């Protein structure tokens, strides 16, 4: 009788231990897994960087040939980053930061087509983030000029 009781108790204990072990193992695996994801995320440079431009759009009227405006680029990152800000087609502009989590750059520019702003690594090889200021030209209405063969200059 006692033997039967002990066997039954052991069996329940074993089941419980088994279940606890599984739960613990699952928790452990889960912990390890999540930690590895975090580790992987924090290990990749440039992820999570946000770049915002102002203005977002430049609208040209019929009389305007270029956008002439002050452009502000603001970036932020979840961890320290070393990067450079470049503007496509404006090689004179390059602003770099080392080990910063955010930065702001302001410059007055004249442009007549979409302006592409990029954040690149310090070697300028990898694009970490990019945004564009769209140039919207007001639809030009055209008409034929007067025909003036009588005019001396025409």
């Amino acid at each position, binding site marked *: 009788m006692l033997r039967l009781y002990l066997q039954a108790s052991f069996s329940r204990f074993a089941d419980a231990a088994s279940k606890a072990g599984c739960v613990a193992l699952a928790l452990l695996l889960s912990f390890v897994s999540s930690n590895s994801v975090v580790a992987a995320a924090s290990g990749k440079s440039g992820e999570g960087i946000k770049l915002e431009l102002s203005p977002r759009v430049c609208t040209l009227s*019929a*009389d305007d040939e270029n956008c002439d405006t002050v452009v502000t680029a603001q970036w932020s990152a979840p961890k320290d980053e070393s990067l450079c800000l470049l503007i496509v087609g404006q090689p004179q502009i390059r602003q770099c930061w080392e080990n910063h989590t955010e930065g702001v750059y302001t410059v007055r520019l004249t442009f007549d087509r979409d302006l592409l702003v990029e954040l690149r690594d310090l070697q300028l090889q990898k694009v970490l983030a990019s945004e564009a200021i769209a140039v919207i030209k007001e639809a*030009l*209405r*055209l*008409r*034929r*000029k*007067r*025909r*003036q*063969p*009588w*005019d*001396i*200059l*025409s």
Partner: protein
Amino acid sequence: MRNARSARIGCDRAFWPLAKERDDFTVHHTLLTAAFLCLLAALVPRVSAAEDSCSSPSPECAVVGRFELSVSLGAGQRSNPVQGRSDIPLVVIPHISWYGKRFFLENLELGFTAFENEQNTLNFIVTPGYDRVFFYRNDLQNIFIAGGSALTSTGGGGYVAVDVPASGREFEVRDRHTTFLAGPEWSFDYRGITGQLNALREVTNEHEGYEVRAALAAPLIQSKGSLVASAGFTWKSREIVRYYYGVDGLYEPGSAFNPFVKLRYSHPLSERWTLNAFAHYEQLANAIADSPIITEDHVTTVFAGVVFKIR
């Protein structure tokens, strides 16, 4: 109220018949002009009318609502048939234009487009009477050079220098006021030939005369540069000719028919710079050429330079 001024008129012309009603719209001139136009048409390369559509700003297409300003810089001159006046140097010639949806401005001319399609345009225009520049140095048309018998004066005022007649008889030479003409203008493109016909009436109540302006232009060479030949005429009614070229009591001319020919070459150098040269010859009708204040029966204008597009 007109200010009457007096001037002395050469006695060698004092015997001319008064109230002479010569109409220079002669068969001779008409045939000459028609022959030239036919020759011109025969020389014209066939150019597709499909080139007319405006898809981008160009010398032929204007952006609605935008002022265009350019200036011609170069060397040239215009002969001056007025007695005692020297030829006119052409160095700087500005040009301003603006096109709205219907209205337009071309230098000193204002217009309204009533109808337009690919080949034809009907405008109503208001334009200055060009002949006044003959007498007034400060006339705006001496700055914005235009066509026709726009004779630029180098003198200072409204007087016309003439010989003192032996008889000493004086004749009044009235002031020539600023006048404007208004009327319809039809222009067209046909196989590369451009035509223009204006029927104008003076609307500023000075002489109430009529004027007809007509011309054809055809490209002879069209590559990067273009060579364009033009021919046409200006017909002025007796009222206009008398107002500008008549002398009360001495010379009262009839209407005048002035044919002209022109050759123009242009070659774009860049977006803003264009090489430009032209030669213009206008034959003055007898009604004008016989005036005692006129010494030549033609006006020639030549110019070579560059056009700079300011905006």
